[in-house]
């Protein structure tokens, strides 16, 4: 499984320096060649050096943020390869280090209990055969995706833009399971727990809750499948909660316990952690105190250029393609606009196949750089609720919900 990379190999260094040209022919492969090879990558912020690791089970090359508990970022070139992020490149984020590494699929049980008429204990086989199987394509994005790009910087997992991915999730509706158990009158929230624990007895288990109405909306799922295969262990095998349109913190991995609560959940992970300012764009001034906070919830639209990177070189007068991905957050994509002059003029891009409102949407446009010099390319998504990405970056002390319009500066030669 392990493969040695030698980032100091002088011949490779030379290749990387010369590989950045993209023209109408695109013969040298540009960003793709740049991304595939080096042993380390440098994310675009101070202390952004990351090892590319293949040391994790069921995972290919990933940017190593933390070994234990694992935090692995998807190298950004993966997003240029298609709408669906391969399972072996999908980002990984665990909070607690006691993660089971042996899971017996036949012995595993999902328990549902609490404020219900009839508690349930379900094997995987029962879950797969007693409820209707459904599938949804949805983006799974860490609340703190892009935290490393916050200015001023904030403490936490220092991700660039790769703590996200899009997959087809296969499983059953949470609603169907809850209805089988029978939610009793007075239920307030549904709480989810996985098999992981902290290494110290005092460490609170990772528990997340959704309001009952949300849990029963028919879209929230208990999934065993990811892109047509079982979940990789590090992405939550055997079962993961799928909360389309909401940040990944709610997508509890290794889900084995569902508890219906008769009051709002006051556990640490709901009441104290993963809170955002209750302000537009969850934004406050650095140092601001005394604002009201609420649990993080729905995602907001984002878009990215995936085939051109900062510093890439393009040829004046030659048509090339600029392309990327977008997602609407809690709604579909209405439009993706792009600019080649730093946002002075915007043009609509061509949207590619629609895989459902919660999925990545590929877009492309034709780009013919006019004059030599620097071009600032920008892209912005507008979702079907009319919400568009802001021109100014938000800021909050936890580094959550970045969705500013992204830009890439290229050199026209």
């Amino acid at each position, binding site marked *: 499984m392990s493969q040695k990379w030698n980032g100091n190999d002088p011949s490779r260094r030379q290749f990387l320096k010369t590989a950045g040209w993209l023209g109408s022919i695109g013969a040298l492969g540009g960003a793709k060649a740049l991304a595939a090879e080096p042993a380390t990558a440098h994310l675009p912020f*101070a*202390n*952004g*050096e990351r090892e590319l*690791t293949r040391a*994790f*089970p*069921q995972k290919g090359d990933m940017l*190593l943020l*933390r*070994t*234990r508990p694992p*935090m692995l970022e998807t190298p950004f070139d993966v997003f240029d390869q298609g709408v669906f992020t391969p399972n072996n490149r999908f980002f990984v984020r665990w909070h607690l*280090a006691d*993660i089971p*590494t*042996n*899971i*017996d*699929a*036949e012995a595993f049980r999902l328990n549902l209990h609490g404020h219900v008429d009839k508690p349930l204990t379900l094997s*995987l*086989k029962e879950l*797969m*055969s007693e409820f*209707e*199987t*459904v*599938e*949804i*394509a949805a983006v799974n994005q860490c609340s703190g995706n892009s935290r*490393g790009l916050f200015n001023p*910087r*904030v*403490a936490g*997992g*220092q991700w660039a833009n790769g703590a996200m991915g899009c997959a087809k999730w*296969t499983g059953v509706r949470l609603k169907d399971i809850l209805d089988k158990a029978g939610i009793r009158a007075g239920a307030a929230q549904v709480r989810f727990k996985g098999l992981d624990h*902290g*290494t*110290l007895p*005092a*460490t609170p288990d990772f528990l997340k809750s959704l309001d009952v109405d949300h849990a029963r909306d*028919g*879209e929230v799922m208990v999934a*065993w*499948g990811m892109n*047509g*295969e*079982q979940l990789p*262990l590090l992405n939550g*095998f*055997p079962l993961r909660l799928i909360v*389309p349109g909401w940040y990944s913190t709610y997508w509890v991995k290794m889900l084995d316990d569902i508890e219906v609560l008769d009051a709002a959940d006051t556990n*640490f992970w709901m009441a*104290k952690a993963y809170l955002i300012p209750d302000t537009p764009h969850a934004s406050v001034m650095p140092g601001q105190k005394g604002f009201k906070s609420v649990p993080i919830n729905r995602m907001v639209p984002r878009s990215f250029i995936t085939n051109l990177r900062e510093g890439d070189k393009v040829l004046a007068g030659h048509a090339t393609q600029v392309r990327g991905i977008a997602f609407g957050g809690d709604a579909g994509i209405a439009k993706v606009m792009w600019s080649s002059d730093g946002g002075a003029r915007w043009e609509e891009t061509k949207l590619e196949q*629609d*895989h*459902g*409102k919660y999925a990545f949407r590929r877009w492309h446009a034709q780009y013919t750089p006019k004059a030599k010099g620097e071009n600032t390319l920008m892209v912005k998504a507008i979702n079907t609720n009319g919400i568009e990405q802001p021109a100014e970056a938000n800021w909050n002390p936890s580094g959550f919900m970045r969705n500013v319009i992204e830009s890439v500066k290229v050199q026209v030669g």
Partner: protein
Amino acid sequence: MNIRHAIALSMIVGAGSLSPAFAQSTHPAPIAIHSVSVDLPVSQSSFPPGPGSELTGKCLICHSAGMVLKQPALTQEEWTAEINKMRKVYGAPIDDSDVAPLSAYFTKVSADQQSK
């Protein structure tokens, strides 16, 4: 990876298709589930030497050094807040008297890391 059991789902058949009009589709292709046994790698990162580094073993109870070493240049006040969160929320067995030297150490280490 060890494959021990497979739960076959021969009863669910039919090709899956996603209609954009609805986010969700029914009748996706069946997926076989196999038990999993894996090994997670051991961290190769370690805290650099220096005054206060002798206290960092307590951090490693819960997480590898990478999480600390990849932080931005936090102030000693910010490091103190982080250490106190680890003590109060997660139960890290760090004594009151260790907070000042540990936060001073992290402040220096994180500043030194920023050229990376």
